[in-house]
């Protein structure tokens, strides 16, 4: 960026431009330090012993031989963690119970999934640590296991928890179950709605668990002092949450635990919970030395939290002129070993893009013997919206209506009463549908075995507790400290906001992400909230600085408050005062800060409210190879409402990245379990995520319908992009083959089988 007139006195605005991110140079030179790049002198290496069984009672653990191995400095098991009473706490955009957290981190009574931690060691080398694990003797009583959600719901299914009783049903059941919870939303009268329908479509869908797929495995480095002070470096989306969980699980004062979030190599919701962190701290406390722990890729797949696999039943009714009159859905989501799938948001989002009078959605949260679900980008919504968007497409065909026109006819807009309750504020769904309609993509003809599909998507977005500080240094540069880990461009966006608010050049703002000791509580990076909330907190911090400088100017110029104002990077005298005083910039004040009252700074501490939903529409062209069942994505367009794009390139990046994750989910990714309950594809070769040759350029259209609750109109954008691809691709497949695929992923073997069953394709 050319440096405009100094200190922005010409009104230069950075927000909305494509600045170079301040943390960029370190990332392109390999200098940036991610979780596994941190080391402390004298550190030990920690490794985890994991259950080989998907379901087993842990009868006994004998660690004596491991403890005796030279080089082993500490061994921990369930005995090193006190039990936790039942209490729900936020885990990303879902809730988790501390009683379950302590058991997920280290198994107690039972091993509930293959990969469940049973013990951990810290030793002077990785080789010794691995050897020590082999010397730990665990006696298991292997139990029958269940993984599929429908099977886990059967009354005769193997029971995971004998103290889990289905919540949300009256009367309260007296027998325990794998069904943790039943939730429901109701709007209007669904039976009356279906009675009005001229056309009804009813389908059942099935999806498999998929992993967030971050390239960087979990990593943590802990050091505990003799007085209990703890320092922890870890790759996380929420270091304050890590601090809270670790303090709670290990009986530490929150104030004595200092967590630094390292640079993070992807999270997408999967790094909003703790796995290694409490173990590293417990080992360090026992060994009296720093302990470093890094997961292998296999451990990431087997022991961190993929999203739910699910079974979804949808029934929708419409009148012959295209009005949706009834929408029913029943969602059954896997929670993994402990309760807490994202079925609630899945229920709430299923019909959220549409204005409907009659809706009933029921959801079941079901435990089974696979790793505990963690959040994955718009948790719950891609699954339920995939099912509804598929059925909407079928309705369009039955009614002989264009799929975009049908969606426009029923689109939710400002004032629509959402199916999950409140009336919606301004939203941009129609704008995205119209944007897609106008593209050259939509109007390009296709050939045989090619198909085009469209789908829309909705996600709420959140705000939450946020602290950010701005400090003016002696030379007029500005130090910015934010508290939500930067997963992909946040520091650039926040620096632009600070530069515009204070009227200083962008390259004079230096941002860092502070550790937990440096700022008040920050909720994690998730919920598409970090730019939305962070910028709000910065606006408040900047407001404090501007007010302070105006007050100082009044004293310097002997002026009254209404005779000074801050604009364009300077405090300016007004009226009569302008004859004797000249404007003073931030840098001018910085030089005399000490003499005029002390260092200059502002500290925004808020609970950001007013997050606006982001809606999007995706358009995809694909081609099916009838000989192999392989699907090639030919063309892809994303249109999504960003409210106001602080940094257009990073907003586009969110659209493109989420779309490609959706492509993977739709076409190839799935957890493949054997009959023995063990994961067969715990690596990147067979857990097949999209590579560069699988996808084309992703055209990104940024729509801006300002969010009136944010000073810049910002909406969170990060999550919505993963919601429409599943439906869009399924719809395109139907257009390419005439077959409605209801099971994900639509991988080559499945496609080929479906083609051959219908006598299509060639043998």
């Amino acid at each position: 960026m050319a440096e405009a007139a100094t200190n922005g006195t010409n009104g230069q605005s950075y927000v909305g431009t494509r600045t170079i991110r301040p943390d960029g140079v370190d990332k392109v030179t390999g200098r940036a330090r991610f979780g596994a790049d941190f080391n402390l002198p004298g550190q030990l290496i920690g490794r985890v012993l994991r259950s080989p069984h998907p379901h087993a009672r842990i009868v006994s653990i004998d660690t004596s031989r491991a403890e005796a191995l030279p080089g082993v400095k500490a061994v921990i098991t369930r005995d090193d963690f006190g039990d936790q009473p039942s209490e729900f706490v936020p885990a990303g955009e879902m809730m988790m119970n501390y009683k379950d957290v302590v058991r997920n981190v280290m198994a107690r009574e039972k091993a509930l999934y293959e990969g469940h931690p049973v013990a951990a060691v810290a030793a002077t080398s990785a080789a010794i640590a691995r050897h020590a694990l082999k010397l730990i003797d665990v006696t298991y009583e292997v139990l029958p296991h269940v993984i599929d959600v429908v099977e886990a719901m059967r009354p005769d299914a193997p029971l995971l928890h004998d103290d889990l009783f289905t919540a949300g049903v009256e009367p309260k059941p007296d027998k325990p179950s794998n069904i943790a919870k039943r939730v429901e939303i109701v709007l209007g009268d669904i039976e009356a709605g279906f009675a009005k329908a001229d056309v009804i479509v009813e389908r059942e869908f099935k999806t498999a668990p998929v992993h967030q797929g971050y390239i960087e495995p979990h990593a943590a480095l802990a050091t505990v002092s003799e007085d209990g002070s703890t320092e922890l470096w870890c790759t996380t989306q929420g270091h304050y949450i890590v601090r809270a969980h670790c303090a709670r699980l290990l009986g530490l004062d929150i104030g004595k635990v200092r967590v630094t979030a390292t640079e993070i190599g992807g999270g997408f919701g999967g790094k909003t919970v703790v796995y290694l962190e409490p173990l590293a701290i417990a080992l360090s406390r026992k060994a009296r030395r720093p302990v470093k722990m890094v997961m292998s890729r296999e451990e990431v797949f087997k022991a961190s939290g993929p999203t739910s696999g699910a079974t979804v039943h949808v029934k929708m009714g419409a009148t012959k002129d295209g009005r949706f009159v009834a929408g029913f859905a029943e969602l059954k989501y896997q929670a993994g070993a402990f309760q807490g799938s994202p079925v609630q948001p899945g229920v709430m989002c299923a019909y959220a893009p549409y204005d409907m009078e009659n809706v009933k959605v029921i959801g079941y949260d079901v435990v089974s013997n696979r790793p505990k679900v963690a959040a994955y980008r718009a948790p719950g919504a891609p699954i339920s919206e995939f099912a509804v968007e598929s059925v909407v497409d079928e309705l369009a065909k039955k009614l002989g209506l264009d799929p975009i026109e049908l969606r426009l006819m029923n689109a939710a807009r400002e004032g629509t009463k959402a199916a999950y309750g409140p009336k919606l504020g301004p939203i941009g769904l129609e704008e995205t549908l119209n944007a897609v309609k106008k593209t050259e993509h939509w109007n390009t003809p296709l050939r045989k075995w090619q198909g085009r599909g469209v789908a829309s998507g909705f996600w709420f977005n959140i705000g939450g507790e946020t602290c950010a500080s701005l400090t003016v240094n002696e030379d007029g540069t500005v130090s910015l400290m934010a508290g939500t880990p930067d997963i992909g461009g946040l520091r650039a966006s926040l620096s632009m906001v600070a530069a515009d608010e204070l009227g200083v050049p962008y390259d004079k703002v230096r941002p860092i992400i502070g550790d937990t000791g440096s700022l008040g509580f920050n909720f994690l990076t998730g919920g598409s909230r970090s730019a939305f909330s962070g910028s709000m907190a910065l606006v408040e911090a900047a407001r404090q600085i501007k007010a302070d400088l105006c007050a100082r100017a009044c004293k310097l110029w002997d002026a009254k408050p209404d005779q000074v104002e801050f604009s364009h990077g300077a405090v300016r005298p007004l009226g009569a005062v302008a004859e004797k005083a000249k404007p003073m910039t931030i840098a001018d004040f910085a030089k005399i800060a000490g003499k005029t009252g002390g260092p200059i700074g502002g500290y925004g501490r808020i609970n950001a409210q007013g997050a606006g939903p982001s809606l999007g529409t995706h358009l995809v062209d694909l081609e099916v190879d009838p000989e192999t069942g392989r699907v090639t994505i030919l063309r892809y367009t994303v249109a999504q409402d960003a409210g106001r794009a602080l940094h257009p390139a990073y907003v586009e990046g969110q659209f493109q990245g989420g779309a490609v994750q959706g492509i993977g989910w739709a076409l190839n990714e799935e957890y493949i379990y054997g009959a023995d309950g063990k994961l067969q594809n715990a690596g990147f070769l067979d857990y097949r995520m999209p590579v560069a040759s699988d996808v084309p350029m992703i055209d990104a259209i940024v729509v801006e319908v300002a969010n009136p609750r944010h000073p810049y109109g910002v909406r969170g954008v990060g999550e919505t992009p993963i919601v429409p691809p599943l439906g869009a691709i399924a719809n395109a497949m139907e257009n390419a083959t005439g077959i409605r695929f209801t099971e994900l992923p639509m991988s080559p073997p499945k496609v080929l089988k479906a083609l051959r069953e219908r006598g299509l394709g060639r043998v």
Partner: protein
Amino acid sequence: MVLIGNLAQVTGGVAEFRLSATSVKQLFQQLAELHPALERHLEEGIAVAIDGQIYQDALLEPIGPDSEVFLLPQIAGGRSSARPHRRIFAR
């Protein structure tokens, strides 16, 4: 006017209330007085939509006399338990 959606399960089916609360905190107090079984749910993770705007953990948010308020499950967030909980380990 206050609509409580799913929570009607706890109030024996009553889903709509007309209350005179001027803040979210007051609203929760009044609801809990009418139906004590609601209190646990109100503490445990409820978001409030006031005239369409969703608020989470906003006890002091004002409610106007003609506002429509809708209770819905929290989408996320708020801090983890602030309740202090100590276990001393003698290891």
